[in-house]
């Protein structure tokens, strides 16, 4: 399943980053998903909540997903506009000479760690 594989990769990234804070709990992590990645967000969250218990670092982590819109940079007029209705045209000048500048990745953006000063 598409989202299952992605969820596992997200958890690997979070666990790797968590190694720098061995005494801390990862209380939350935020993932940004571009709309061009064809990821069903609720499905991804479900998979994350199922798989996170496989790793002690993420067993209690709250995951948040932010959806990133597809923005297009127009090579003719120089403006960056929001893609509308899956039409890859500049909404400012209607040119088709556009490049996608956002909405194409899946990024683990940030995480919150609770430092426990009392932990050895």
């Amino acid at each position: 399943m598409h989202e299952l594989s992605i969820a596992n990769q997200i958890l690997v990234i979070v666990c790797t980053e968590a190694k720098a804070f061995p005494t801390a709990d990862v209380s939350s992590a935020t993932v940004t998903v571009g709309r061009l990645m064809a990821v069903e967000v609720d499905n991804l969250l479900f998979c994350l909540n199922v798989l996170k218990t496989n790793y002690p670092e993420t067993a209690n982590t709250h995951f948040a997903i932010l959806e990133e819109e597809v923005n297009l940079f127009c090579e003719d007029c120089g403006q960056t506009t929001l893609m509308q209705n899956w039409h890859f045209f500049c909404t400012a000048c209607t040119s088709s000479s556009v490049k996608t500048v956002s909405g194409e990745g899946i990024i683990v953006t940030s995480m919150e760690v609770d430092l426990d000063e009392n932990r050895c």
Partner: protein
Amino acid sequence: MKIDVKKSVMEANNEMASQLRNVWNDRNLTVLNFISSPGAGKTTLLERTLQRLSGKLKAAVLVGDLQTENDARRLEVYGFPTKQIVTSGTCHLEAHMIEKHLQFVDRVDLDLLIIENVGNLVCPSSYDLGEDAKIVLLSTAEGEDKPLKYPGIFRRAEVTLLTKVDLVPHTDFQVELAKQNIYTIKPNMSVIEVSSRTGFGLDEWVKWLEDRVQSKKSRSTSGLPLPIRRS
């Protein structure tokens, strides 16, 4: 305490893909990644393609499927090195799979590496394999609105092969509407209508392929930088 991470889920795959791309560029090897829904006709189209390339180009084929080696068996009869990648459940090929299996088909003087991806219009779109171009197949047995439903792959592909056009008289498929939908997603898409059954369009398709291979070799010998392709 908030920690900025900013790490892409695709980072490991993209790093491997980039390494493969650099090696292939150094060798002037053209690599094409064929993507479609299951049943759109990838393997049959490749059978007809390899038939026409025999004696003209030195090619090799990597084929991805969840199970069986059926497609590799079909393609290897045309005399090119062919290897099946059985994913055992993964619905797409990834760069590390290509790196692992390349050794079985690679030759020093290869002109063209064909990668037939697992039948799936979603996940293969997101995974860079180091290829020069993604080729998407859309068959006339599917709907004209397929490009609108799967914008990711139609945005990323360089060519759409509209397959099974011999069926058009027998279906309600509207070729011009399908093209219009493709151009909505990618205005400069090259669309080639083909029928593996009748041979229609295959000369045009194979010419495109031969020109693509020659173009890469020409850029290399001319000292021009090879295009940086975004996945």
